[in-house]
Structure formats: structure tokens, C-alpha cells
């Protein structure tokens, strides 16, 4: 019996003390949320007391909060007592790709995902000698050599409690917002990264992560710390369509950049968007992502390509505390069929000579509804702060919508602000020009849209830029008649 199993078992026994009846056979808690559930989660994970206390504070605070209604999205009421808050990260393994939904495989092939990776993504059992696994091990060793810590959140709680205790909740406090507070109470796992002083992380933290991705739960927690003068590029997500039985996803990501440090965080999100004609069964993605440029000359850059989910509520933000710190937000969001997205960013300028750039590209097709919501705040002490915002939307067809709500709040007269916004439809003239050169309408749309997104795609790590291009094609399939 391995130690993990022992921990789970011993915790399962303890549960009884609290009078909570659970089916020992299954590793999933019955639906419902109360303090006992949180205690069980914490125990199952063998957490220290302070973390349990933090979870409980969050839970008690959450009880007093109301679900936010200001976003321009519509979805049925969520019954939080009807959700199971702990499910062992174990997936049923399939014997071969033949057992996988052929539709899913077709999409994988369109995206050009290698066969071995397809197996992994769809939960097919893979050989112990499977390349990526050994690659992952090699990566781990290389990272270790540099002193980089890259592990699951639970492992970090065990092995690096001092770092977790020092940074957890410092960027997104447990009181922050309804979903983040819920996450703070019930989060199950996630990732932890620490880059030591002066280290430039020798690789994109991506390939490795994709291997682990298949096991992430619905309440994920990620914490990335870049110490003085360090540099890291982190990629989350996957271009492959991800299905999940859990409809609600409320993740929290916290980034901390110390003096002269740079964090580049890229996301490619392609959760199941729901039934193409009804939107039924799609994922609700209510995420809180925020980074603090804690000290001088630090830089945080968010790049996101959002093509999935039924409902997206997401505002990766930067708090520019250190002087000369830089915050960036590059976003492409696609809403097709019945998808809805309310997304954008917040740039809070506190330090002197802080600079932020926002480039947001929204594409709506079918009955998709999309909102850009962004806030740029220049606080009193932020002398000579600068912001450049550009929000462009493109509409395909006449049943979709694009909305832009930029909030600008300037309290320092030396600030320089620039804001540009455009909304256009794919021009008949552009389509005809492509057609006249023998390019089909489908290819023309994907070409025009990819051109439109270029400023954002070029911010993605190379390999993902290529995949993102293909992803756009697949996401917009069937959007022209």
C-alpha cells in the first residue's frame, strides 16, 4: 500500500468521528457544503491547522456573500448544495482509443494532437515507458538543478509550507469575491511554482503541465512566485476540448513578482461549450486570476485564448505596486453557438512610472454574446503612469453580440491614457477577395480571424501559437453558411 493510500484511508476512518457518513468504497463526497465537508477535504489532504482555519474563515465569509449578478451573462441558478466538493482525482481508464467518442477524436486530429497525447487526454491507459512521462521526469530533474519548485499545490503545502503560508491569499484574499471565496474554502488542488532569485526558468512550464492537466478538479488553486530577478513562462490549459462532469469551475490563480522579476502566464482554454444548438451541459468558468508586481521593475503578462465554456467570467488582472512595473493583458475570446463570455482585465497602478497594455480581441459568431469589461485605475501616487488599451470585436453573422465596458479611473494628473475600440463584421469585400483567389469561405473566415488575432497570438509561446491558429478554425467551424 502506498503512502498516499494510507493517508486517504486513515482520513476516511477519522471522518466517522465527525459523524459524517460516507461511502468508503467511493472516493467522492456526497453533494453538499458545510464546515464538516471542509474539514474532511482538509484532512484528506493532511493539511496543517492554519490552512484548515483559513478555509473555514473563507467559508464563513462566503455564507454572508451574494453571487455577483453584474456580469452580462445568463445561466440558471446554481445550487451549491447540489455539488460534490471532493472527488478523488481518478479517472476511469479506457483500454484503447477505440472506446473514445469518435467526435472527440476527430477534433483531436483536426488540431494535430499526437496520438500518444490523444490517449492521455482522453484517459486511455498508457505504457509506463510512454515518452512524455519520461520527458516529464527529465524536466523535473532539470528544474531541480536550477532550484525551481514546480509541483502540485498539495505537495507544496506538505513540502514548502512556509512559502504557501507566506503568499497564499496575498493577491486574492479569501474575502475577494463570491467564487474566489468559495474556492478558498473548498479548493482541492492545483499547481505551485517558485522561481528562486536570479533564475531564468530553463523551459516553458507547459508540456509537463499538460500531462497533469487531465487530473485537475473544479476548484483549482495556482500560486506562482517569481523571486528577485527571476523569469518564468507558464502555460495553462490545452487546445484539446476538455469535457468534465463538473459544470461549475471556479479557479483562483495568484502571481507574485518580486523586484526585476517577470511572469508570463498564458492560457488556452477550450472547455466544453455545451450543446451547439441549445448550449446545454457546457462548463461555467468563473475564474479569479490576479498578479501583483510587488516590487520595482517587475512585469506580469497575461495572455489568454478563450474558446470554450458555456459561460466565462474572467478578468486576469495586475496590481502594479512596484515603481516601473509593467502589466500586460492580451486576450482572444471566441463565442460561437450559445456561448457567453464576460471577460477583460483590471490594471491597478500604484507605483510610479507603471505601465500597462491591454489588447483584447473578441470574436462572436452564431448566437454568441461577448462582453469586454476592463478597468484601468491610476491611484494617487502613480506618477507618470501610462496605459494603452485596444479592444476590438469582430462579428460573424447577425445573431451574435459584442459589448464593451471600459472603466477608467484616474486620480493622478500626470497619467497618460489611450483607449481604442472597434467593432466590425467580417467584410463582404474581404470574403469576396479571398473567394476570388480561390480560397473557400471557411478558410477565408479562419484566415481573417487569425489575422485579427495576430497581435495576441504573437505573445503566445511558439508551439501554442500554432495550435491556437488551428483552434480558431475548429471553434468557428460552421459559422459561415
Amino acid at each position: 500500500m502506498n503512502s498516499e493510500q494510507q493517508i486517504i484511508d486513515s482520513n476516511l476512518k477519522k471522518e466517522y468521528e465527525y459523524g459524517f457518513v460516507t461511502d468508503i468504497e467511493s472516493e467522492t463526497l456526497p453533494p453538499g457544503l458545510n464546515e464538516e465537508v471542509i474539514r474532511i477535504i482538509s484532512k484528506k489532504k493532511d493539511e496543517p491547522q492554519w490552512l484548515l482555519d483559513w478555509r473555514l474563515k473563507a467559508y464563513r465569509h462566503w455564507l454572508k456573500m451574494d453571487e455577483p449578478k453584474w456580469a452580462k451573462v445568463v445561466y440558471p441558478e446554481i445550487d451549491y448544495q447540489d455539488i460534490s466538493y471532493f472527488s478523488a482525482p481518478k479517472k476511469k481508464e479506457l483500454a484503447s482509443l477505440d472506446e473514445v467518442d469518435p467526435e472527440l477524436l476527430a477534433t483531436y486530429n483536426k488540431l494535430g494532437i499526437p496520438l500518444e497525447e490523444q490517449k492521455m487526454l482522453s484517459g486511455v491507459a498508457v505504457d509506463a515507458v510512454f515518452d512524455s512521462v519520461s520527458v516529464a521526469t527529465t524536466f523535473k530533474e532539470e528544474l531541480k538543478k536550477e532550484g525551481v519548485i514546480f509541483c502540485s499545490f498539495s505537495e507544496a503545502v506538505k513540502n514548502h509550507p512556509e512559502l504557501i503560508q507566506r503568499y497564499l491569499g496575498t493577491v486574492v484574499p479569501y474575502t475577494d469575491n463570491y467564487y474566489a471565496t468559495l474556492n478558498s474554502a473548498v479548493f482541492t488542488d492545483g499547481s505551485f511554482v517558485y522561481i528562486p532569485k536570479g533564475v531564468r526558468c530553463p523551459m516553458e512550464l507547459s508540456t509537463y503541465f499538460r500531462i497533469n492537466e487531465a487530473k485537475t478538479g473544479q476548484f483549482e488553486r495556482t500560486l506562482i512566485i517569481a523571486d528577485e530577478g527571476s523569469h518564468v513562462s507558464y502555460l495553462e490549459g490545452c487546445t484539446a476540448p476538455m469535457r468534465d462532469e463538473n459544470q461549475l469551475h471556479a479557479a483562483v490563480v495568484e502571481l507574485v513578482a518580486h523586484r526585476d522579476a517577470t511572469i508570463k502566464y498564458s492560457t488556452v482554454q477550450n472547455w466544453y461549450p455545451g450543446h451547439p444548438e441549445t448550449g446545454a451541459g457546457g462548463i461555467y468558468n468563473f475564474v479569479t486570476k490576479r498578479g501583483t508586481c510587488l516590487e520595482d521593475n517587475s512585469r506580469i503578462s497575461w495572455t489568454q485564448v478563450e474558446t470554450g465554456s458555456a459561460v466565462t467570467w474572467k478578468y486576469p488582472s495586475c496590481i502594479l505596486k512596484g515603481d516601473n512595473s509593467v502589466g500586460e493583458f492580451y486576450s482572444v475570446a471566441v463565442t460561437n453557438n450559445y456561448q457567453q463570455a464576460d471577460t477583460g482585465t483590471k490594471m491597478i497602478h500604484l507605483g510610479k512610472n507603471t505601465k500597462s497594455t491591454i489588447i483584447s480581441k473578441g470574436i462572436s459568431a452564431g448566437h454568441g454574446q461577448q462582453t469586454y469589461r476592463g478597468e484601468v485605475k491610476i491611484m494617487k501616487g502613480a506618477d507618470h503612469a501610462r496605459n494603452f488599451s485596444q479592444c476590438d470585436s469582430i462579428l460573424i453573422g447577425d445573431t451574435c453580440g459584442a459589448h464593451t465596458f471600459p472603466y477608467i479611473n484616474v486620480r493622478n494628473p500626470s497619467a497618460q491614457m489611450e483607449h481604442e475600440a472597434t467593432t466590425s463584421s467580417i467584410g463582404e469585400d474581404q470574403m469576396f477577395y479571398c473567394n476570388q483567389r480561390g480560397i473557400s469561405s471557411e478558410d477565408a473566415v479562419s484566415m481573417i480571424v487569425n489575422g485579427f488575432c495576430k497581435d495576441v497570438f504573437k505573445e503566445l509561446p511558439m508551439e501554442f501559437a500554432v495550435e491556437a491558429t488551428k483552434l480558431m478554425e475548429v471553434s468557428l467551424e460552421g459559422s459561415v453558411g
Partner: protein
Amino acid sequence: MLDIQNLHARVEDKPILKGINLAIKSGEMHAVMGRNGSGKSTLSNVITGREGFTVTQGDVNYKGESILDWSPEDRALAGIFMSFQYPIVIPGVNNTYFLKAALNAKRKHEGEKELDAAGFLKLIKQKLAELDMDTTYLQRGVNEGFSGGEKKRNEILQMLTLQPDLAILDETDSGLDIDALKIIAEGVNQFRNVDRSLLVITHYQRLLKYIKPDVVHVLIDGQIVRSGGKELALELEEKGYNWLES
């Protein structure tokens, strides 16, 4: 190659073409001249199948088949090319990518192997040199930030690369200085051969100094009122269009 019979077409409710008859054989170059609003551009748009132009009567036959029901891309793949009067900008899509996609769509249609990046680059570099164009062109967006002359040159570059059977040059000479005009004319002349046909649509005869049409047609109010040899172009230059109006 192209046989237009009694073609009537309208834009929205307005009749523009009122019975055009025009036959272009393989190897021939025809020029259609006319003032603004005479229907020149409508003619080229109807031949290429653009949305918004409704044919109410008559037929357009290409290589012996009526093409009025064909989609614009099917017409293009069959070998009909138009050099646009106002070339379209597609921001962020670079010329290399665009032209390679177009060429490969055609090659695929013809059952040929698609060109890879290296093969395409070799081909395009040769064409660029012929038109005295810079290789920085390849990295720029399609017509993005191009001057009027650069846009027109780009159209001819596309023509030379795609090697159509029927090329329609819609006001290709407008907005060009004399040097650019000469380079383009050279490109067009080099393109001409016994298997290809050209339809040159123009307002002025200055392009016709450098490329000699076999037949010149004068279009007034949606009808061809006179056809003749290349000397007709010179006559128009001298006398204007008024003397042809009824």
C-alpha cells in the same frame, strides 16, 4: 474562352447592364472602355460572381459552360482572375500566407501536389523580381499599409503567381505613376500567350499605350455601343465619349 450573351444585370433595383454581348477567344485581349457609371465594374463583378449583383437576363459562358450558378471560388478555381480596382486590406494576414493558400487551393483543385513553404518561396521570389518588388512584401499584411501603386502591383503579382486562363484587369492603371505603369504593362505582356485571355477595363487609354488590345469596346449606359481595333482607343482619347452617345 468567354462568351457573354445579352447580359442584363442590376444592383439592388437599379438596372446597370442592359444587354451586353461580348466574346473573347483564347489568346485575345479585349479592352472595355467607358466613363464612370457606365457599368464597367458591374461587368467584372458579374463575371466573377460577386454578391449583390443580380443577373436578370442573358448568360455568361466560360470555356463553354454557363457559370452564373457557380460560386465565386469555383469560378476562381476554374481559372478566372480579377485584378481589383480597389484591392482589399486583410490586416494581420501576411501576403506569403495568403498567396500560398490561394495557389495551393488551385493546385489542389487541379489535382497537383501542394507547394511547401520552400517551394513557394522560391517561386514568389522570382515573381517579385519580375515586378521590381521588395522581399519585405512577404512579411507584410495583405495590402496593409500599401500605397495605391503597391496595391496594384500586388494584384499583378497574384495574377502572375496564380496563372489564370482569363484575367480581368479592373482599372489597374488608375493611381499609378508612369514607372509603375510600365512595370505592370511588362508583367501583363509577359503573361499573354495563345492560351490565355484578358479583359482590360479602363477609363483612360494610357495603359493601352503599353499593352495592345486586339479589340476595344466602348461601354455606355450598360451597352456596348461600338467595337473596333486599338485605334478606337486613340479616337476616344481625342474626342471623348460624347460623340458616341445617342
